[in-house]
């Protein structure tokens, strides 16, 4: 089964230790200035947003059927069976289609680099493979970020919503959005207030299906269209040949 992260906004105290642990894990600089940045970037894979006394994390959602992986012409991004959507920098040609395609706007770019990489949360694949939690989940002092099996986390989230209905909006963001994601969010407010795209706008269709519907026709289209084009060519040139032959006949066999 695949791993996932459950973020419970009501438990979050905004300490930003997850940001620091993430930076350390990914060998990125982290200081007070970076901590004060309230947007994700090529050097900040996750951010804790604050709105009055409410907090919200943003990070790559690790879609079950990721748009970024399906659009990458060289397959530099892919979803592992364990859950993380990972990036192979060696394959990347820098077309940035993943950034344009991602419905959550997660992949960021090293615009200042001469050999730029696409940067995003990759859900600590080395740690996950070693049976450990992600760095952000491990350091979280309140359990607001929890790492585990996706099914178990969904059950846990449902239980929390049922046990404390007054504290939560009755929804799990990421359960069905774009076909489900490996990051699940529950909160006392709507996540849209923190910049997450609205569920209604995202829909429940996995993003790759929108292109799949067209792409899957191509193998049939190629032989069919070749036949049609070849047929037209043959007919229109055959007409010339016939006309030429008839002209010869009219002249009594003389050319």
């Amino acid at each position: 089964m695949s791993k996932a992260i459950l973020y419970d906004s009501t438990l979050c105290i905004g300490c930003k230790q997850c940001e620091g642990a993430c930076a350390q894990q990914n060998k990125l600089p982290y200081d007070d200035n970076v901590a004060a940045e309230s947007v994700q970037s090529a050097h900040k894979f996750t951010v804790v947003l604050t709105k009055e006394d409410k907090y919200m994390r943003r990070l790559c959602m690790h879609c079950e059927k990721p748009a970024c992986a399906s659009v990458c012409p060289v397959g530099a991004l892919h979803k592992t069976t364990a859950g993380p959507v990972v990036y192979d920098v060696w394959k990347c040609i820098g077309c940035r289609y993943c950034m344009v395609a991602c419905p959550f706007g997660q992949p960021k770019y090293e615009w200042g680099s001469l050999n730029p990489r696409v940067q995003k949360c990759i859900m600590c694949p080395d740690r996950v493979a070693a049976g450990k939690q992600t760095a952000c989940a491990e350091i979280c002092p309140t359990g607001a970020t929890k790492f585990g099996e996706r099914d178990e986390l969904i059950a846990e989230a449902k239980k929390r919503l049922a046990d404390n209905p007054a504290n939560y909006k009755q929804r799990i963001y990421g359960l069905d959005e774009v076909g489900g994601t490996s990051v699940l969010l529950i909160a006392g407010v709507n996540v849209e207030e923190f910049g997450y795209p609205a569920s209604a706008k995202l829909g429940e269709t996995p993003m790759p299906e929108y292109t799949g519907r067209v792409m899957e026709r191509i193998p049939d289209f190629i032989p069919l269209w070749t036949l049609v084009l070849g047929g037209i060519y043959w007919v229109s040139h055959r007409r010339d040949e016939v006309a030429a032959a008839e002209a010869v006949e009219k002249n009594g066999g003389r050319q």
Partner: protein
Amino acid sequence: MKFKLTFWRVIFLVIMALGLYSSFVRYFRGLGAVSNMTDQFPWGLWIGFDCLCGVMLAAGGFCMVGAVYLFNVERLHPVVRPAVLTAFLGYLLFIVGLLFDLGRPWFIWHQMIYMNPHSVMFEVGFCVMTYTTVLFFEFLPNVFERLNWNKGIKVIKKIYPVLIVAGILLSTLHQSSLGSLYLIMPSKLHPFWYTPAMPFFFFGSAVAVGLAMTIFESTQSAKAFGRQLELPVLVTLGGALLVALWVNLLLRMEDFYHRGMLSQVFKPSYEAYFLWLELALTFVIPIGMLSFKKVRLSPPLLYLASISTVLGFITNRLNIALIGFESFVGHHYEPKWTEFSITLMIIAIGFAAFGVAVKYLPIFESEKAHKLEEPEIPVGAGVLSHAGD
């Protein structure tokens, strides 16, 4: 030979100098320094114009090859060679444009080994690569004729049917797939432009622009190279353009109606202004003009109608690539001057290369040779009198 500094040569040199400076910024300071692209706007002018519009503007090649060799419209024969040359140069420059836009252009060849068949971008890249090769072979006879190498011409003639069918097949695929690129962004692209029918619209607009560009080019090169305008050619193209525009318009309106967009299309809004501009240039002006027989028989007016069509569909593609994302992103994107200057440099190289090719290769001369070896086709008066039907 003495090099004379004419007005256009000065312009060319200025564009090249600025372009080279911008290229330096691009490769030694990075994409962030040369462009206004950001994490929110990862695709800018270069994808919007150089790639999306560039491929569309080069569509004249497959349109004319299709008309002449597939459908046997003999009277269009004189424009095949210039159209194929434009397409060949267009695709080469498209690849040059990509080398500026890609973050790691030195790995562009990864496309050939790490193939992801689910990716539309992979399909477009693969088709563009193979089609450029096809165009190279379609262009080769010019060189062989110049070198008087008859054996080469014979070989190309033998494989010509294959080249024609392959070229049109590949063009159908990648012209439409440029539209499929945007199918995966239903929640991001503005509903004026996001439609499952995008692949059809991209192909339809490529055909219309292919015809319009051929009119534009014939008129332009007649002026520039002091050649006679082939009126029957222009009249045929003008008639075909009118049909192509009507088909595009009907499909577009059907799509708006089908998606319940018609009521919003006419409500003023930021996006609506750009849509109106696009619809006016692509449909209202050229269809209005071409509906008159007088216009279809007049080279200068045909020229104007074709310019309006080309500008209209350029607006269409820039709307999709840039304007259509602004409401989702929440801010405007304006290209930096260095982005413009690289685009201008690529266009200028295209014009210069076309001029050089015409000067040294039998791009236009072939009409005479062609007429000598084959019997004259009765076009002239016959076509003119039927052109209005």
